[in-house]
């Protein structure tokens, strides 16, 4: 320890060290994967909020003009419905704008929405490059690839998750399926789908951003108008992924959350060569 270059505050540890056994850890995530993972936290909401501000200018889902209000936008209908049925919102000043006031930058912000959307979109593409580089450099891409057994394994996991609350209530033992891979089949499918959705979002984004110079790309998704529909629904992939993702990481515990920050996990047995015995 004589060659220690650590600050003085570390000195206590040095003296107590011999009693502390080394900890066995596995490196779970390459640092580029971790960085790009967290960079999505500001970028994706930026894209979604500005995207819905852009959506406001010409909603995909419209109906015939309402005889009373002249409203054509389904999202405005939804806002009106929310203000009529949610207690405390009955006096909301502008119900048709409720959705845009709450899940976008706001109505009437097309120019700013576009600017922020381009900014976030370029950052999102750069971030995607970082993520893929991290997967390749850390070898993590292999753990994400779908496999032939996935459907069966996913059903098994689903059965486990569905049965878990009942087993807990009945205080019965409910065994976690044996696992000898980094992720279970459900996780793997989710973690594989999100980068694919990211790629498709970028592709459809370019298709509707440059429908003339890249008209072949728009044609690939069924033309300009259809590519807009793709782009809109791909957004829901992230929302549908993120909600359970965040809930489950907290349910799974600190080690899993920490591993995405520091890279390593002490759950050696789960990720390692040996099958997991619950």
């Amino acid at each position, binding site marked *: 320890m004589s060659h220690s270059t650590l600050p003085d505050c570390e000195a206590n540890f040095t003296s107590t060290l011999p009693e*502390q056994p080394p900890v066995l850890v596995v490196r779970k995530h390459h640092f580029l994967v971790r960085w790009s993972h967290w960079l999505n936290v500001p970028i994706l909401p930026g894209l979604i909020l500005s995207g819905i501000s852009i959506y406001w200018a010409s909603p995909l889902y419209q109906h015939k003009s309402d005889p009373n209000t002249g409203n054509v936008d389904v999202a405005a209908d939804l806002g009106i419905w929310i203000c009529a049925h949610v207690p405390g919102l009955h006096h909301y000043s502008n119900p048709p704008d409720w959705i845009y006031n709450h899940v976008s930058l706001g109505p009437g912000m097309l120019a700013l929405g576009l600017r922020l959307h381009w900014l976030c979109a370029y950052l999102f593409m750069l971030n995607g490059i970082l993520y893929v580089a991290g997967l390749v450099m850390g070898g993590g891409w292999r753990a994400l*690839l779908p496999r032939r057994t996935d459907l069966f394994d996913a059903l098994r996991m689903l059965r486990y998750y569905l049965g878990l609350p009942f087993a807990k209530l009945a205080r019965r033992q409910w065994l976690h399926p044996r696992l000898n891979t980094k992720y279970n089949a459900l996780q793997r499918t989710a973690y594989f789908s999100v980068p694919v959705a990211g790629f498709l979002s970028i592709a459809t984004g370019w298709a509707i951003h440059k429908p003339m110079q890249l008209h072949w790309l728009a*044609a690939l998704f069924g033309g300009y108008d259809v590519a807009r529909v793709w782009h809109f629904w791909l957004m829901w992939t992230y929302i549908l992924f993120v909600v359970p993702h965040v809930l489950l990481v907290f349910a799974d515990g600190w080690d899993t959350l920490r591993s995405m920050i520091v890279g390593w996990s002490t759950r050696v047995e789960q990720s*390692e*060569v040996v099958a997991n015995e619950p």
Partner: protein
Amino acid sequence: MNHKVNGDDSLQPKDTPSTDIGRKQEMAELPEASPEDEKRSVPMNIEKHEAPEALEQQGDAKGSPSLLVDHEPRTDEAASSVAVKSVSVKKPQSFFGERPLPAIEMAPRVLRYESRRDLLMFGAGALAALTGAKFLLPQDTLRRLGMHRNMGSAWKEWFLSKALRIDDDVAEALYSANRSVPTYTKSQITPLKNNYNGATPDPGYISGWKLTLDGLTSGLSISLDIQNLLTLFPVHEQITRLVCVEGWSAIAWWAGMRFDDLFRAYPPMSQAKWALVESSVNLDGSGNPDPYFMSLDLATARHPQTLLATHFNGQPLTVDHGAPLRLLVPVKLGLKNVKAITRITYVAEEPRDYWAERGYSRYDGI
């Protein structure tokens, strides 16, 4: 795939003693590590791996002494120095097969140090992201979130304009004079809204309408009426898509003169790189002056599908769609397709643009 390779159960009990010996030998070499192995109930094969260089690197990179002991799962490839690639040679894994994660023994204090460092970095990153969001979000959005302080709007403006400029440069790089936009058949025509939102302008201007050209080589100012234009230049037809910045699009059947023909007949001065296009529609919905002017780069103006359109869906243009002459630039957003154009001025420097002054991009190539 993994289980096939690693499910070699017979290895585990057989090798456990030897692993322990290996570990103890190593502990002897590194006195800071503890020889307490009983606590570790992880049924796993660990072998000391001959990778002192990796050990040194890790120790040095973190500015901490070499406490790290690089272990990796049981492998017969003693020569392998890359931990990630440690696999059994008995059943070689396919290239796509999942590999076991390398397990490493680390001194708790190194782990603590690394965790603290990474968590601090994470916290700093989160703070930076929050500041960035406050900095970039529109003032109205921030106000709705309860933040009334004005966050450096000049910087925000500069930063977002920069981002917009990059996107314009990308659009300009994507443009090719030889690339035509897709054309459609008459059965694919869709309704085109006029986007006046009920405030269609008064058609009074049409009777005395003239197109004026300025900034020509000749130094003259040329005025042409619609009859002059139709007799001077051949009429071309095209069915193309008009895409609005708002997101909607429409396929419409247009007819008119090529901008390039006008360009050849009345060549602009040699320094000219831009055209400033102005419109007779220069009043807003309530009748107040609201001049509409737009910048167009000459490369786009000379594209064979850039028309000075006189007809829409087989009929002369109506006021809704820019009678008597509108610009049709299918390689640009709809906002560059100026209705009822009255003046084209060729200039050397990029001229003002109505929508660019309102926060939209300048180039608008699609």
